[in-house]
């Protein structure tokens, strides 16, 4: 039996993007992979309904971020979070990538969420607000403060480039 129509394309198109967003948010590569996979599993499980939605990937993203938020909530301390960064072993231009993740890790979770969803997920503040169930102004505030906190890092990166 073939996978349901539409799922394979959605999965192939969005898996890496979603996992990348979760990685930026969580700072844990393996966990990002796991949660993205879990979200797509849930989508597959309910595909007969989700495929009828206007924005199926929106459903997957919401589930993934709910999982990520819950997972992050269980982490004991920021220290533990940062310790995970030091354990990471990834290929490619690791220093740059980890530097951004570390900079993001210093942000409050809500600010980080807004920054990642906006700049990586390409969501508008209205879309983030809808996903998070908060007022759009609240998201603007998170985004503004998150961007400000990241500015030094970005400026440094830009001048290096």
């Amino acid at each position: 039996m073939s996978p349901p129509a539409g799922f394979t394309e959605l999965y192939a198109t969005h898996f890496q993007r979603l996992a990348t967003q979760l990685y930026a948010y969580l700072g844990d590569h393996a966990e990002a992979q796991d949660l993205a996979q879990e979200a797509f599993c849930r989508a597959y499980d309910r595909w007969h309904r989700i495929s009828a939605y206007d924005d199926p990937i929106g459903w997957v993203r919401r589930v993934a971020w709910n999982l990520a938020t819950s997972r992050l909530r269980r982490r004991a301390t920021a220290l533990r979070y940062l310790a995970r960064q030091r354990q990471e072993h990834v290929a490619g231009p690791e220093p740059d990538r980890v530097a951004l993740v570390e900079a993001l890790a210093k942000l409050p979770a809500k600010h980080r969420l807004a920054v990642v969803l906006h700049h990586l997920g390409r969501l508008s503040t209205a879309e983030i607000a809808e996903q998070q169930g908060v007022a759009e102004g609240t998201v603007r505030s998170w985004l503004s403060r998150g961007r400000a906190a990241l500015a030094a890092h970005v400026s440094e990166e830009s001048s290096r480039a």
Partner: protein
Amino acid sequence: MPEPMDQTFADFADRTAGTFRAAPVEAVAVAVRRRRRTRRGALAALALAAVIAPLTLLSLGGRGETPPPVITPSTPAVTSPTGSPSPSPSPEAGPAVEVRPVQVPGVPPGFPPHLVFTDADHGWALLERCPADSTACVEDDCSQAGHTCAVVLARTEDGGRTWRRVTGVPSLDGKVINMYALDAQTITLHLIRERFLLTRDGGATFSSHRLSTPPKEALLADARAYGHEGYMVTCPGATGFEDGASGVECEREQLVKIGSGPVRPQPRLGGMPNSASSLHRGADGRFWLLTSPEREGGAMRIQLSEDGARTWRQVPVPAQASSFGLLLSPDGAEVWLTGDAQQLWRLVDRAWQRQADLPEESPPYQIVALGGGILLAANAAGVWRLQDGVFAQVPGLPEMSLNHLPDGTLRGYAIGSVWLSPGTGTAADRPWIKIQ
């Protein structure tokens, strides 16, 4: 020209996206179907992890000092050397396959069934139909939606030839449900984030149970399905039915006799999720316990109890294995280990002997030991049979997870169907029934 912030994140995405690898969509399908029936807590609920790192969930082992080994490792006796040619399909005709569609009187077509069987004859089906414009389940559990999905519970007593609707059950419409079937009369329905419904009389009546106190029958069904009849390994305080993000973590799991509590003394167990353990109980009375340090590195460990889980001793593992799963034959006498690189060992005269390499991408839950030195192993290409040291493909069978039901029936979960091979024995031509 993009803003510096956008450029930074675009660069990050370019460099990072390629480091993630999605599991094959076929594997997602298998994992989902498996989870629909037997959802487990935390990482185990992420049957997905079995897709990404197939051996971690079913790997077992211990922690701490090493008691004197009673089973000594030996130089592997490789009956089919590593690196030998890949198994090749058999040219022979496949076993007979009878197809039995699920048809419930009074239920119109369009209800895809979710199926679970407790023996060759007795099974349960959940049939669910949602309108195309349903707004149900915008979240992951349907609990917040004005759902309109209709759900029907049915059962069979003749191996899926006929089905009848279970009428004693409360409305299941719009629920997300996992089934834990213990026997012909007993099934627990886990209404996710709501409650448990239990029947002990074949669906004539149901009792309701809070999520915090799952029925013993559900735990027993789950233990039976995973090959550790009557026992479970769990975190203190966990119900055993946490799923996804609500999974319980702990520094040290414990072995529990269902209905009685933790056994005394406890074997050496690791924590969840970083050093999860799994249990196998053989029909010969032996308990096998494997612990797999998942993310922290370290050695795999196997513990064995031959006196009803009262005392434990450590069993050496093959040096080449960094991760493995354990398989028992129906009588518990044959013990097999699978490694993370297609390795396969069999315990012979207290020593692990290397066997023919497994087919590629055959996770432990897709392998079953039949006895007599015979295995069935499934991968994306189908089902393979190990006999006389060689794997040969069984024509006509799809990729499926495999296990034994208590009456000896072989049961496979494939995409969109359940497969049953009633009876016992190791015959290559035992017939199959496809129920869909």
